[in-house]
């Protein structure tokens, strides 16, 4: 049985002295009936053997289909009805729900709220990129700063909501700090739509910068140090090093961050729901969908809204895959 030790890699499936066990990986067609291991023969040709992968996959696939694919399918079918989510009967209404979403201003308005979060994520990515670049070099207290920048991402969303409700409330943290700095203000930060949305988007930057930061930092640190040294010998300055060494190597992570930012901006829920409940013009697409479905029992309309959101996110992902055909597509 020493042959197995010669073939360290599974890639070597072909060859004259292929160990008997390797045949398994070459697929059903290539399997020879004269399996040389007496024990192997007993199970290899039984129907049980063909079933084996399915025994492992049964539970995962059942869960995947039940909780991902069936909901998507039923959501699409609900979206063409006026179902209220409870009563046994429902009427087909055609595309009426979709027409409502795009024509009733109060339903359509939530898309504009996403704009605040989208703008915030541009800031967030820039800040994260700056600190990742800075902290990829040797600094004192480097790990301390790294921890500080990342920690907000780990905090419970409800706790963050309360921390910032107190931060923005009248006489709260922000007002006190401004008063200390001599800028007395009695501005109600969550009082009007623009100010409230800017404040909430700011909280989102506070919360999520850490994730982008760690992703960028990981990408930058995987650059071999010799590259910087070579660049320096050639007289490249800091900016040129960033432009020609760091920037190209973080492109995949940057494109991933942009996708996360866009789909994240469209599906904001926790922060505005916890802090304002969607009041004063801060309702987002998901808050509105949840309210339609679970408070107003408009399951049909809510489903149509969810289908629209899903379609937008799939479209954006598809565009990104087309624009940045990177190696991540070979996941499977």
């Amino acid at each position, binding site marked *: 049985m020493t042959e197995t*030790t010669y*073939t360290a890699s*599974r890639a070597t499936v072909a060859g004259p002295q292929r160990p008997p*066990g390797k045949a398994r*990986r*070459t697929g059903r067609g290539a399997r020879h009936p004269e399996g040389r*291991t007496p*024990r*192997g023969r007993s199970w290899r040709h039984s129907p049980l053997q063909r079933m084996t992968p399915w025994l492992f*996959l049964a*539970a*995962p*696939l059942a*869960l*995947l289909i039940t*909780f*991902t694919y069936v*909901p998507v399918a039923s*959501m699409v079918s609900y979206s063409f009805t006026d179902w209220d989510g409870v009563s046994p009967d429902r009427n087909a209404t055609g595309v009426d729900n979709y027409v409502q979403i795009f024509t009733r201003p109060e339903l359509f308005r939530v898309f504009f709220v996403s704009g605040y979060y989208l703008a915030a994520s541009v800031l967030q990515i820039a800040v994260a990129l*700056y600190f990742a670049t800075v902290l990829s*070099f*040797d*600094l004192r207290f480097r*790990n301390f700063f790294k921890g500080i920048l*990342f*920690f907000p991402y*780990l*905090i*419970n969303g*409800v*706790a963050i909501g*309360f921390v910032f409700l*107190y931060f923005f409330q009248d006489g709260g*943290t922000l007002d006190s*700090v401004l008063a*200390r700095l001599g800028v007395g203000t009695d501005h109600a930060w969550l009082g009007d739509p623009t100010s409230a949305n800017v404040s909430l988007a700011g909280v989102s930057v506070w919360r999520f910068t850490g*994730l982008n930061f*760690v992703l960028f930092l*990981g990408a930058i*640190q995987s*650059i*071999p*140090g010799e590259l910087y*040294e070579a660049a*320096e010998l050639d007289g490249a300055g800091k900016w040129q090093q960033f432009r020609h060494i760091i920037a190209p190597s973080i492109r995949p992570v940057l494109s*991933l961050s942009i996708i996360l930012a866009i789909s994240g901006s469209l*599906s904001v829920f*926790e922060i505005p729901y*916890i802090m304002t409940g969607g009041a004063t013009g801060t309702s987002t697409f998901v808050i509105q969908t949840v309210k339609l*479905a679970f408070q107003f029992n408009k*399951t049909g309309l809510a*489903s149509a809204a*969810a*289908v629209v*959101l*899903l379609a937008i996110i*799939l479209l954006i992902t598809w565009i990104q895959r087309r624009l940045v055909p990177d190696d*991540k597509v070979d*996941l*499977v």
Partner: protein
Amino acid sequence: MTPDPTAAQAVPAGSPAGSPPGASAGSPAGPTAPAPVRAPAPAGRRRFPVGTALTYVSLLAATAVVLLPLAVVLLTSLKTSEEVADGNALTLPGDWLNLDNYVTAFTDGHMPAAFGNTAFILFFSIGGTVVIGSMTAYAIDRFEFRAKKLVMALFLVATLVPSVTTQVATFQIVNGFELVDTRWAPILLYMGTDIVSVYIFLQFIRGIPVSLDEAARLDGANSLTIYRKIIFPLLKPAVATVVIIKGITTYNDFYIPFLYLHSEDLGTISTALFRFKGPFGAHWEAISAGAILVIIPTLVVFLLLQRWIYNGFAQGATK
């Protein structure tokens, strides 16, 4: 990033010549200069003439922005309600050991039940995710079967469907199983919709030599034994990653328990804390204490497991 799962861990071992990657390990940077920042090191990129000062200013500013809101809430949680009512937010509490608010939050806020429910949900959903994710990865990587491409496509496409969008219809399914308002609803959903962990296991299982399976197979082990006795024990680092990511995201999740657990005694820490909003209204000292109670376990876990957490989230997000 490359899909190589070891990329993140391999970094500190990179070049020992004091390069930026080596810095995280500390000792590799040693030979060149004991104090790399200030020493006039030959490597010019270490010297930020004015830059160094500005860099530290920006880092300190970021630290203040991160810590100030949290610190104020910590201070508020130690104040009496009179102090909260008339002092401004930045004043210090009169008694630094005033834990009354924590007692209030703990007893009136149903926090013990909430921590119990969260622990219950964490235990089963993490256990289930680990078993399901590793089984899926084992089946996909180690077997050839007719519908393999289709199965892989099902898992791949599912990563694109954000679960927030489908809850409208998922709710009807969970309702059909009569699981709404039981702790099994979140457990099943956390288990069934976690495709990221499948990818983490898949990446890792590819690095385990097939010859190990072969050897065991020749000794008469069947597939289940190989999975249990050989593959699963070798997957430990991947299990650690999945447990950390899954644990933190489940602990923090608000959306699922909010939709599925309505009874007061079924609250998780997120929904229990959310319910502080009603009864405690303007009692910021109690709300602050509740928020701090929820943050402390996260802080402890973070301080203990920093390295794994960074790597885990970096892996989880890039998959």
